[in-house]
Structure formats: C-alpha cells, structure tokens
C-alpha cells in the first residue's frame, strides 16, 4: 500500500500517476478531510482502490509520499520510526538538510527516505544523471526553474527570491543574495525565454550530494521585476490554485573525448504535474523493491534506479527536450 499525505495539486497528481501504474491500494490523508474525500471519489474505480485514512493509519503503508507544504521533517521522522519508507517532495533548503539527517534512523528501521523527489529538486537530479552518461566527466551543473505547482509551491517560490541562494563554486559553498545574477535562459516552447535569478533552491545541495565530482552547481528561478520587488514583503495576493505551464532546464558542462562540451536538457510541463509524476515513480520504485539500500537518498544518486525512473516518468507523459545547436 502506498500512502499520500496532502491531497493538493501534487498529491492528486501522485494519486493519478500511481493509478496509471496500476497501483492497487492507495490511501490518502489531508488535514482537510473533504479534499482527500473529493480526490478519492474522483479517482476511485478500475483496478485501484483509493481510501481516505487518518494520519496514524499511514503507519501501515509500505511507502508514504509527503506532498503537503514543508517542513516534512517531523512527519518523516514519525513514519521512519514506524519502519515506513518516505518520499518527500519538500523544496525547502532547511527541511531537505534536516531530512538528510534522518538517514541513520531510516537505515536502523530498514526504511528508505528519498529527499527532494519533485520537479526541482528531483527531476533536476535525474536529468543531470541522464546527461552525465553521455560525458566522460562532468564538472558544472546549472539548473533553472520556471513556474510553480500549487499554492504552497508558489509561496516557496516567493520566499526563494528573498533569501540567500546557495551554490557550489570551486570547492566551497557560496551564499549570494537571491534575486541577483540575472541570466537569460531558454526553455522549450511554449515557455520560451525568461530571465532567471539566483534562488534559495535546494537543488545545488542535493545535486552535489549525488555528484561529488562537480566543481560548480547553481540553481536559478525565473522572475519578473514585480516578483523581485515584492519578494521581500509578504505575499499580498493569494496564489492561484495552480500555476500555468512551467519548465525545468538543466545545463551540464564537462569533458567528452578530450573536448569541452555543454549540453542542455529540459522539460516544459506544469511543475505540479512533473513533481507528482516524479514522486509517484519514486514511490513505485520503492514499492516494487527497485531501491535496495536503506537510508536517505537523493534522485540522481548512483544507488538509485535513475534510468528506470526516467523511463517511468516518460511513460507517464513527461516529455524531455534536448537543446540542439543549428
């Protein structure tokens, strides 16, 4: 049985994807019971049985996907103590770092903890691994994200532009003000070109963990002037139920056959959809015992079934686009 905590945008996409993978038993929990009941009612039928449960009943699941707003640390700890594997979609730096400290606890309880299994982080790590296979060695990774998933993701995006970005630069972690360092990045259509700025994203931390050989890692988010100006004050306009079309762009630099090479791969899809499919595929991998090692992992790590995950993600309708020079 796979459990889903949070029945918002990402949670509902996780349930839809698990149903697509013919997962038989799915249980959903949300603070607002009506939301989880609506989701279960919408997706029930066919091979999948979707039930609404309380928080304690999640401890009887084999894997639980945490799709609610961060922090996920406390609920992840509670589930790991009950030997339940956890897939977290958290995109908050502090929360991701705290979750990684649960590695020992997960290992002691024969459970797996996947940190940052969403779009960014998550899909970004998988794309780096996908590109890294065509290089002899890689040394730079630059991630750019456009768009937001649900309201919690939009709030996190707002915070990401006002904090401090963290990036790996020639052997040390550099902290720079978020919202600085403009760079024009091209995403696949229909997203197109957007100015991207340093953001408080956990991607550099998690990608560096999966690829220790990297010398430079950065994470950027797209933003308008209005986003940058108002990022320092609380959100005055409530976020929309779901953001529009989003994009994720991963640029990898390295060496191939003695020559310097730059390669770019990207996804143009709603961020919530990508996050839901990545989280569901990861949970499905744990449920079908594709991930052997206990403890905390990040996507893109050598211990993860990255190729299998990419295949699953593509089969769920996420298209990858490679940048081709004319």
């Amino acid at each position: 049985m796979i459990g889903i905590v949070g029945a918002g945008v990402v949670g509902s996409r996780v349930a839809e994807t698990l149903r697509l993978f013919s997962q038989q038993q799915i249980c959903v929990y949300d603070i607002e019971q009506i939301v989880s009941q609506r989701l279960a009612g919408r997706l029930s039928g066919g091979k999948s049985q979707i039930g609404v449960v309380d928080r304690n009943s999640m401890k009887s699941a084999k894997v639980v996907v945490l799709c609610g707003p961060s922090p996920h640390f406390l609920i992840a700890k509670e589930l790991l103590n009950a030997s339940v594997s956890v897939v977290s979609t958290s995109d908050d730096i502090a929360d991701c770092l705290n979750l990684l400290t649960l590695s020992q606890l997960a290992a002691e309880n024969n459970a797996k903890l996947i940190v940052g299994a969403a779009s960014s982080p998550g899909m970004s790590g998988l794309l780096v691994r996908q590109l890294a296979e065509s290089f002899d060695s890689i040394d730079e990774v630059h991630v750019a994200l456009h768009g937001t998933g649900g309201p919690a993701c939009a709030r996190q995006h707002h915070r990401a532009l006002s904090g401090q970005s963290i990036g790996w630069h020639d052997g040390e972690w550099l902290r720079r003000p978020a919202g600085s360092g403009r760079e024009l990045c091209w995403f696949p259509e229909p997203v197109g070109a957007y100015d991207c700025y340093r953001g408080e994203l956990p991607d550099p931390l998690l990608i560096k963990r999966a690829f220790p050989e990297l010398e430079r890692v950065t994470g950027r988010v797209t933003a308008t002037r209005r986003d940058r100006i108002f990022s320092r004050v609380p959100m005055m306009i409530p976020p929309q139920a779901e953001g529009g079309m989003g994009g994720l762009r991963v640029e990898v630099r390295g060496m191939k056959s003695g020559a310097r090479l730059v390669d770019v791969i990207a996804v143009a899809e709603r961020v919530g959809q990508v996050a839901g499919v990545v989280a569901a595929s990861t949970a499905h991998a744990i449920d079908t015992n594709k991930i052997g090692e206990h403890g905390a992992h990040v996507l893109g790590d050598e211990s993860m079934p990255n190729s299998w995950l990419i295949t699953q993600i593509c089969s769920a309708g996420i298209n990858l686009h490679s940048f081709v020079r004319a």
Partner: protein
Amino acid sequence: MAVKFIRRVLLAVSVAGAVAGVIRFKGKGVGAIKQGGWRKVTDSKQN
C-alpha cells in the same frame, strides 16, 4: 530659470527613455533561436 531647468530635465528624461527603448527593443534577442532549437528526446526503452 525654472522653466529652462524643467525643459532640460524633460529633454534628458526623453533622451534616456528613447535610448533605453532602442536598447530594449534591439536587445529582445531572438538570436538564440537562430542558433538552435529543442528536440524531443525519445526514450529508446519505450519503443
């Protein structure tokens, strides 16, 4: 004297606006499109 100053300010603002407009219009680069494009990656394992 004051009118002369206001005229100068208005002239400076309009010249600066015109220059910024030209740079911005010219800088709306479509150059990158000319240099390449996106190709859908097909996963060989799916075929």
